[in-house]
């Protein structure tokens, strides 16, 4: 039995309806309780919670500092390839997007590492599209062997793999896998992923189960905000998190909330989420789950990130490039999405310090894996 069995017990429209039916009294009850369940989470992400935003932010900040202190974990993405056999309506790497495709070779990977290391990073997130023939398990094995000695923590955001594949990659230094469901709305998922292996909703939704069975250290969850009603999608993310925490109790979890960013040739988001709503969602996750890591990428703006780091976020990236080879090469390949916060890692570091927080570059040791 996997998450899909639990997922199938829920009806999207009914969940949505119950979130929008929450009242101020439900929000007040959720805020007053010592621990919160999924119904409380619904109240906290509902429109009825908006007048309580400052109260939510205060509580979220307190809970975050209690657990994580005044610290922020630093990571940076390393795009290895933009080849992709999928069509995803919202992504720059989509098969139908005419662009120069590139997959980094060993030398190019080492050049990227040199630049990233010069910024001070010790936690790297490897990113690719989905092109199993050229960028499959063998490619990852080789890449991990190259990368492992330079970083104490390696995360991956690539196509979903089989349990055995993860079991093969973990001894080579893979600590964390991020796999976003994009949307839990099954019909819309099919519309947004009409072609390629990614169109298989079931295989994707059960990826965290396969990771849990493989015994991975950390799993990152999330949905792409802008595809469907973000409140309903976030409820399903929380449901997924709850299920995984109980079942795979030795694994850590993190959540991201990427908002759709423009890319050349892409469709505009179907649903807009404003900044207030994103703050609401961050605080709601924290109040619902004191231990989960919350991550914010350079998709978000300068001003938003300066303030959000105090509200519940525990890890951020800085100086990111979303085109393969983008750190070391002057010739830029097509990027997955446009970066919004373009500050350098050094500028982000001084912003973090000026707010009385400490940036943590190393929080794992290669000897522990």
């Amino acid at each position, binding site marked *: 039995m996997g998450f899909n069995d639990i997922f199938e017990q829920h009806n999207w429209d009914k969940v949505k309806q119950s979130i929008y039916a929450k009242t101020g009294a439900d929000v007040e009850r959720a805020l007053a309780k010592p621990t919160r369940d999924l119904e409380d989470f619904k109240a906290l992400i509902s429109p009825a919670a908006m007048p309580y935003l400052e109260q939510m932010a205060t509580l979220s900040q307190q809970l975050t*500092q*209690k*657990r*994580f*202190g*005044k*610290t922020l974990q630093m990571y940076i993405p390393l795009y290895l390839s933009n080849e992709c056999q999928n069509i995803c309506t919202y992504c720059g790497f989509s098969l139908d997007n005419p662009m120069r495709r590139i997959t980094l070779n060993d030398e190019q990977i080492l050049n990227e590492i040199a630049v990233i290391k010069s910024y001070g990073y*010790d936690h790297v997130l490897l990113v690719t599209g989905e092109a199993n023939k050229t960028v499959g398990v063998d490619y990852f094995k080789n890449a991990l062997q190259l990368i492992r000695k330079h970083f*104490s923590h390696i995360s991956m955001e690539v196509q979903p793999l089989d349990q055995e594949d993860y079991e093969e990659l973990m001894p080579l230094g893979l600590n964390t896998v991020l796999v976003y469901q994009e949307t839990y709305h099954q019909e819309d998922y099919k519309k947004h992923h009409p072609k390629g292996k990614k169109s298989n909703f079931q295989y994707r939704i059960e990826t965290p189960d396969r990771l849990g069975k493989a015994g991975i250290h950390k799993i990152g969850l999330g949905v792409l905000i802008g595809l469907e009603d973000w409140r309903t999608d976030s409820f399903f993310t929380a449901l997924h998190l709850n299920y995984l*925490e109980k079942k795979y*109790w*030795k*694994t*850590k979890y993190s959540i991201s909330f990427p908002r759709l960013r423009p890319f050349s040739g892409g469709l505009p988001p179907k649903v807009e989420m404003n900044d207030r709503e994103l703050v609401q969602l961050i605080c709601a996750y924290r109040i619902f789950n004191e*231990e989960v890591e919350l991550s914010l990428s350079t998709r978000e703006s300068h001003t938003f990130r300066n303030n959000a780091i105090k509200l519940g976020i525990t890890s951020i990236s800085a100086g990111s490039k979303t085109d393969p080879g983008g750190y070391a090469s002057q010739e830029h390949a097509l990027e997955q999405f446009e970066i919004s916060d373009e500050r350098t890692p050094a500028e982000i570091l001084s912003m973090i*310090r000026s707010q*009385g*927080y*400490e940036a*943590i570059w*190393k*929080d*794992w*040791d290669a*000897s*522990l894996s």
Partner: protein
Amino acid sequence: MNILKIADKTFTSRLFTGTGKFGSSSQMEEALLASGSELVTVALKRVDVQNQEDDILQHLAHPQFNLLPNTSGVRNAKEAVFAAQLAREALETNWLKLEIHPDPKYLLPDPIETLRAAEELVKLGFVVLPYIHADPVLCKRLEEVGTAAVMPLGSPIGSNSGLQTREFLKIIIQQSNVPVVVDAGIGAPSHAAEAMELGADAVLVNTAIAVSPNPVQMAKAFKMAIEAGRMAYEAKLAPVGSVAVASSPLTAFLDEF
């Protein structure tokens, strides 16, 4: 006040401290200096042992600070033993705070793996201070395999909930032949004072100091509370509820003979 001795070291301060969660390394340094602490635990995973100029270690380079490397992040005995050996080599101390928590959510210690690792580490010459549940039997078992102290938790780590395990701590303190250090959950100086009044040999505090808006002042407050609690313990507290009993209905008949 009596001097505390653990293995080959003596301590005038009974406040042991952690190094995580501070807003900056210099703030950590100031707070730890203010606390008077002489034993400071540091996570192996946070320090860069290859780097001579590691930021955390540089700020801990004071003669009064003895380093207590910890194995935070390991999930079983095998990983713990490996990490301990790395820590010993890198930080040049055979002291070790053994913590094995396979559960990353509540960070609760695994008693089975901890006992296994402790036994092996003692054989390898480590001074082992294991972080464990307030389980009196487990504490005796650890003492038997040769740990230098036991570190039962007051409540879940980082929870600031105080001595929720009070009744078990009392038994542990009464039974133990090695020092008892109450670790985890101490959120206020009053909690620390209570642990000392109960007869704990020391307490370990991190979150309550690091996360305070004024870590230096909070560190001083803990220092004072721990001294007060220990003094009271040594001076012998008045038994609770010892009020004069006006009559002795059960034994009065003895006077009638």
